[in-house]
């Protein structure tokens, strides 16, 4: 155990010593993001057509969180019944979409992938559109989310079955089948949209397709929150294997990772997370595509570090996008999908140019 290559060929030190620019030590970064999220929750809850100062927001929230009952004050109603659940749901949805994006990008080893690439949102749309055009209300207020989730799950099931080749899931087939099935479902949505006579239904459908959190209430919060929290936990445990998966089929085999089984597992988990959040928020684009890249720019590609950052950034981003959606043409509301594009794209392009997105340079 004596020979090292180092002794024989000393590397060019000037080229070698270039540490990666670290913004902050990792734990500090996590703490800053968590604090920013907590602060943003307070601020964003206060912002709206009726402004409420942050200290009053804090007082109202503290009152309720310590078991206090409803009071007659208008601000109490607005803050506790309407805005706070909505802000929380925005954070949950943002975290869920961003996480799902990070996982799908890793699973199909493609940086332009997002949870919708595999046909999920188109499936959810079909479910939602069927409810909106037929006026079905079998499950009351939950009819729409349940139908949207069922649509997403159905689309994913079709994609998984069709992409399967001798029991294995391979990235390129997944992308091809996902895109194809997505187009098929989008066709169904367009058909339903064109056929319906009710312009009110059409309006609702368009709004749903662009996404929004206006339906948020306490009742819609627990299921997505639990699913996203569970998803974070299950993903973090497998972050190391996800790293191996990103290196490819052969590397996975060499490192003792059952790549095919891991892909199945991760895609089903992604479907659950995406389907659940899309069901309550509609088709909010862009978060799942961009936030994982921002996280990689900050802390590198190791999923053990980037997944928590992705979740926090996604939560922050969607929370503020929703504030903008509420405020820009207040008292009316913009679909949040428009905001994520208007805010997110310029921001992402600026950051990318400033820091350099080196994701694909290595592929040469």
């Amino acid at each position, binding site marked *: *155990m*004596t*020979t*090292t*290559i*180092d*002794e*024989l*060929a*000393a*590397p060019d*030190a000037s080229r*070698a*010593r*270039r*540490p*990666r620019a670290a913004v902050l030590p990792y734990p500090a970064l996590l703490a800053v993001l968590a604090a920013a999220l907590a602060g943003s929750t307070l601020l964003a809850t206060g912002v709206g057509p009726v402004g409420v100062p942050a200290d009053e927001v804090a007082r109202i929230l503290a009152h309720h969180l310590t078991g206090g009952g409803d009071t007659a004050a208008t601000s109490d109603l607005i803050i506790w019944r309407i805005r706070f659940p909505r802000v929380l749901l925005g954070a949950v949805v943002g975290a869920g979409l961003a996480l799902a994006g990070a996982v799908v*990008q*890793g699973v199909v*080893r493609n*940086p332009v992938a997002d949870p919708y690439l595999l046909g999920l949102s188109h499936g959810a749309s079909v479910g939602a559109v069927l409810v909106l055009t037929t006026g079905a209300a079998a499950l009351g207020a939950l009819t729409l989310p349940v139908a949207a989730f069922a649509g997403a799950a159905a689309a994913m099931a079709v994609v998984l079955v069709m992409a399967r080749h001798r029991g294995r899931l391979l990235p390129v087939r997944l992308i091809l089948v996902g895109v194809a099935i997505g187009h098929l479902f989008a066709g169904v949505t367009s058909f339903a949209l064109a056929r319906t006579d009710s312009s009110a239904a059409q309006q609702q459908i368009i709004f749903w397709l662009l996404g929004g959190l206006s339906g948020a209430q306490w009742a819609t919060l627990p299921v997505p929150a639990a699913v996203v929290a569970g998803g974070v936990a299950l993903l973090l*445990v*497998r972050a*190391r*294997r996800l*790293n*191996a998966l*990103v*290196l*490819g*089929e*052969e*590397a996975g*085999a*060499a*490192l*003792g*990772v*059952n790549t095919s089984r891991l892909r199945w597992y991760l895609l089903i988990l992604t479907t659950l997370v995406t389907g659940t959040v899309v069901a309550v928020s509609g088709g909010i684009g862009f978060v799942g595509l961009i936030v994982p890249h921002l996280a*990689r720019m900050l802390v*590198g*590609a*190791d999923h053990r570090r980037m997944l928590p950052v992705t979740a926090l950034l996604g939560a922050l981003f969607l929370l503020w996008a929703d504030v903008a959606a509420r405020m820009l043409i207040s008292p009316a509301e913009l679909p949040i999908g428009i905001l994520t594009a208007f805010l997110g794209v310029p921001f992402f392009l600026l950051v990318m140019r400033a820091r350099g997105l*080196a*994701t694909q*340079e*290595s*592929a040469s």
Partner: protein
Amino acid sequence: MRLDIDAVSVALGGRPVLHEVDLTVHPGQFTALVGPNGSGKSTLLRAVYRARRPDAGAVRLDGRDLWAMPAAEAARHTGVLMQEQHTGFEFTVAETVALGRTPHLGLFDRFTRADRAAVDEAVERTGLTPYRDRRVGELSGGERQRVLLARALAQQPRLLVLDEPTNHLDIRHQLDILELVRDLGITVLAALHSLDLAACYADTVAVLRAGRLVGHGRPEEVLTPTAIAEVFDVDATVHHDGGATRFALRPRCVCPEQLCHWSCRTRRAAALTETTDVR
């Protein structure tokens, strides 16, 4: 660790690629796998590092069926340096090498001091210490090859499988990497293109041709001019030069009669010999 490849057959897309290959590598032995392109070298290695299950036959490590083990256990025994184009996201050198510990860690295990030591040692031995925090994508092909070797070493395997480990490397690093591997003292099965390197570093050479094992033994026994002509379709002269074996290879003569190209001269040499004989 003893590796037994036992009547392994593999067909890809209906075309047989390996036909009942039998090969044993004894503990601590370095066996080079040589053969022309398409002879099945990579496929045989893939059956050993569990990337392709054999259609028939078995691969055994110390007598235990490799393909019956859990994937992680197999990977604790077997390290691999494969021909691989890194197309993942931007991992750093240290992160990539740390992935070599994956088979040793359960879902809930954290990186221990022993894991970190294994990674540090692998980085050190491959001369990558100054590169630790560089992104793999920024490195040259040769440096990347060393990163992959470091990842395999971090696995602390008892069998190392190498597929063309000297690809992308300059002459110096070709020798360095094989020397390092030989010095590990573990069992090695390496597909090599260069007969010189095979003869120089391997204890035994196994020759594959069209999916069949056509020879296995000490380099000087197996790599004879006749065998080389038959397997690689080139003319060879073998020189034994103070313990080292050297191969002079040239294409077989396909020049028109009487008119050998200057770079070939096979026939002229033959003609000269004939003239001498007549006189």
